[in-house]
C-alpha cells in the first residue's frame, strides 16, 4: 500500500516561459567567440610566463641584474599608454550605452592614438637596446624579454587593427545603445591585452 502525500494547495505551479535570470548569473560580455580567443591568449601567455619563471629559477643572477639593462622610462611609458588607451575604450563603451555616437568615436580615436604610443615607444627602445648590444645573444634575460614582449606586441597590433575596424563601424552607425556587442567584444580583448602587459611590466622592468 502506498501513501500518497498531496502537495499543500499553497505551492504555486511553475510559471511557463523562460526561467528568470538567477542573481549573479552574469552574461557573456561581447561575444562567445571573442572569449574563446581571449582564453587562447591567456593560455599562450600562461605558458610563456611558466617558461619565464623556470628560466629565472635557473639563472637568478642574470634575472636579478636584468632590469638595470632595460629602460624603466620606456617600460613605464608602455604602461601609461596602454592604461590610458584602455581608459578611453572604457569611456567609449559608456558613451555608446547612453547613445552618444560622436563621443564614442572621439573616445575610440583617442584610444587608438594612445594605443599607437606603444609601438612608437617600442621603436625607440629597440634602437636604444641594439645600440647597447642588447640583441638575441645578450643572455637568457634579454631573450626571455624579447620573446614575451614581442608576443605581446603582436597582440597589441591585432588590437589596433580591431580598433580601426570598430571605429569605422561606429562611424557608419553599425552600433546602437541596444546592440553594440562588437564594440564590447573589442573592449574586452583590449583590456585583457592591457592586463597581460600589467603582468609583463614588473617581471622585466622591476623585479627581474
Amino acid at each position, binding site marked *: 500500500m502506498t501513501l500518497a502525500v498531496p502537495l499543500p494547495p499553497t505551492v504555486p505551479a511553475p510559471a511557463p516561459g523562460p526561467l528568470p535570470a538567477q542573481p*549573479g*548569473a*552574469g*552574461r*557573456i*560580455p561581447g561575444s562567445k567567440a571573442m*572569449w574563446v580567443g581571449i*582564453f587562447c591568449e*591567456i593560455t599562450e601567455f*600562461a605558458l610563456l*610566463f611558466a617558461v619565464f*619563471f*623556470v628560466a*629565472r*629559477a*635557473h639563472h*637568478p643572477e642574470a634575472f*636579478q641584474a636584468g*632590469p638595470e639593462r632595460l629602460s*624603466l622610462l620606456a617600460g*613605464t611609458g608602455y*604602461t*601609461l599608454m596602454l*592604461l*590610458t588607451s*584602455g*581608459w578611453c*575604450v*572604457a*569611456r567609449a563603451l*559608456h558613451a555608446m550605452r547612453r547613445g552618444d555616437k560622436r563621443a564614442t568615436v572621439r573616445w575610440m580615436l583617442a584610444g587608438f592614438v594612445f594605443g599607437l604610443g606603444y609601438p612608437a615607444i617600442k621603436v625607440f627602445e629597440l634602437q636604444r637596446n641594439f645600440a647597447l648590444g642588447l640583441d638575441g645573444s645578450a643572455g637568457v634575460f634579454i631573450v626571455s624579454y624579447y620573446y614575451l614582449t614581442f608576443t605581446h606586441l603582436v597582440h597589441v597590433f591585432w588590437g589596433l587593427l580591431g580598433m580601426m575596424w570598430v571605429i569605422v563601424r561606429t562611424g557608419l552607425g553599425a552600433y546602437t545603445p541596444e546592440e553594440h556587442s562588437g564594440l564590447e567584444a573589442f*573592449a*574586452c580583448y583590449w*583590456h*585583457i591585452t*592591457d*592586463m597581460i602587459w*600589467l*603582468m609583463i*611590466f*614588473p*617581471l622585466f*622592468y*622591476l*623585479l627581474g
Partner: protein
Amino acid sequence: MSPERKIDLAWLMLVLLSVGGAGIARSDANAVLVAVGVSLVMAIKLRLVCNYFLELHEAHPRIRRAVLAFCHGMPILVILTTAFGDTLSSLTGALLG
C-alpha cells in the same frame, strides 16, 4: 558617483600605482619583500582593470572565475618563485634532465 567618474578615478589610481610600483622596485629592501610589494601593486592594478574597465562583476561566473584566477595567480606565483626559486630550479632541473 557616475560610472564614468569611477572609470576616471580608476585610471588615475592605475597611473599612480604604476609610477609608485617602480619606486618600490628600486628600493634596497630584501628581494622577497620587494617581490611582495610589487606583486601587491600588480594585484591591485589588475583588480582595478577587472572591476572598472572590464566590468567583470557583470560577466558569467565561469568567465569571472577564470580571469580572476589568472589575475590572482600571477602575483602569487611571482612571490612563490622568488621565495622558492631554488626548489623550482631543482624540480625543473630533474624534470628536464
